[in-house]
């Protein structure tokens, strides 16, 4: 358990965060050039299909974020170490951002391709539900007065919420849907030309690095918040007097 914690400590340090931020900018720029210039337009959907290079990476990163919430929640309940709770909280917040982005981009793409902003398509709908689950996770964190209890409840919700993640991906297979079947994660070769696949993979890397930077920054802020709360409490708790002083 100490190995991952030390790694997390190094990643959330100021130097690592600055480095992550620089790499996020560089890879994002590469992905942007790839998406707008290198990748050819889709034969059927035309230029609007380029939304794929942001929509799909944000969706994958969102699901990865909720996997981190799950892992952090399990580790927190097992060990009680607050570092895992910080990881889960930071991953949940970033996951909500990326899920929201996924839905908005999906709506824009759907408007262009299907002619409607929202079609109650099972995949979009369950992604929206996933967003609501993690909004509920945030509400649980702010609900009780006891921080220890809120962390445990949030961990329970984080674990239970993760159950929904595979349902989102499999919904395209389980239910009939107007949404495109998975093009990359399916048996057999991905149904994309190599240039598109390469740009998509670069975009996934870019989104991942941005996510890691957000994660590291949020964890560092949360560590400072915890230190501030501890310092305030330490100031307010009076020092214990020795028996000799009490008698004097």
């Amino acid at each position, binding site marked *: 358990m100490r190995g991952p914690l030390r790694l997390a400590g190094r990643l959330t340090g100021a130097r690592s965060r600055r480095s992550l931020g620089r790499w996020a900018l560089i890879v994002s720029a590469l992905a942007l050039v790839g998406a707008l210039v290198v990748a050819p337009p889709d034969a059927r959907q035309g230029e609007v299909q380029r939304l794929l290079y942001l929509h799909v990476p944000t969706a994958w990163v969102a699901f990865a974020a909720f996997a981190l919430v799950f892992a952090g929640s399990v580790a927190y309940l097992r060990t009680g170490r607050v570092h895992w709770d910080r990881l889960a909280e930071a991953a949940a917040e970033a996951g909500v951002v990326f899920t929201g982005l996924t839905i908005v981009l999906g709506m824009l793409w759907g408007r262009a391709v299907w002619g409607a902003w929202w079609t109650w398509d099972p995949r979009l709908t369950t992604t929206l539900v*996933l967003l609501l689950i993690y909004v*509920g996770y945030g509400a649980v964190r702010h*609900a009780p*007065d006891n921080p220890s209890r809120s962390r445990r*409840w949030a961990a*329970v*919700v984080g674990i*239970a919420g993760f*159950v929904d993640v595979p349902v989102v991906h499999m919904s395209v297979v389980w239910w009939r849907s107007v949404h495109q079947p998975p093009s990359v994660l399916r048996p057999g070769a991905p149904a994309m030309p190599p240039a598109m696949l390469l740009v998509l993979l670069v975009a996934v890397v870019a989104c991942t690095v941005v996510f890691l930077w957000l994660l590291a920054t949020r964890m560092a802020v949360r560590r400072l918040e915890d230190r501030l709360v501890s310092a305030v409490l330490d100031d307010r708790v009076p020092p214990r007097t020795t028996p000799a002083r009490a008698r004097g």
Partner: protein
Amino acid sequence: MSAWADVAAITAKDLRIEWRARHAGSVIVPFVVTLVVTAGLAFGPGISLLRQTAPGLIWLTGLFAVVLAARHAYEVESADDAVTGLLLAPIDKAAVFAGKANALGAQLVVLQAAVIGLVGLLYGLPPGSSAPALAVTVVLGALGLGAMGSLLGAVAGAPRTQGSVLPLLVFPLAAPLLLAVTGATAGAFRGVFAVQWLSLLAAFDVVFWSLGILLYGATLED
């Protein structure tokens, strides 16, 4: 006592409390009846649309009912700090979870059976509905909702939440169950066992019962 005896004791305790308090009868049933009638006003009077929406409405009422029932179950435990007795009792917390989930599930089975009867009366159940398929669907759906209510209901006991967080948690988490149980109910109304939906529903029940058995202790600790 064996674990099964502990589960039975907790189930009997919760059902006895509910029988004496009559909370389901005085609060949940009127609410559910009002919901069914109001939905009839909103979507009616055409019978075909009412029949189409009936499976979803039946289980929406189930979701509202489990929120109300779970909140009440934990408010009762919070009164006079009775939950401390549960914590200190020499029984496995998983048995407490299972007992409470069973009690909630039993109440929901009775309630959902009544709702189906009411919907059949007001909305006109289609001819050829399969009673065995409906029964299996109701039991599996109630088991899943009972597990969710038992696991997440502890959140409703916190003073600051006042139960407002419970619907926010239950409704999205129950979405896969809602899809499956609505599909299975629609199949039952057509006279078939919707095996795909029932399988998904059973899998969801297994997952949430397992989560409850593993995690319930963490929700009770102070």
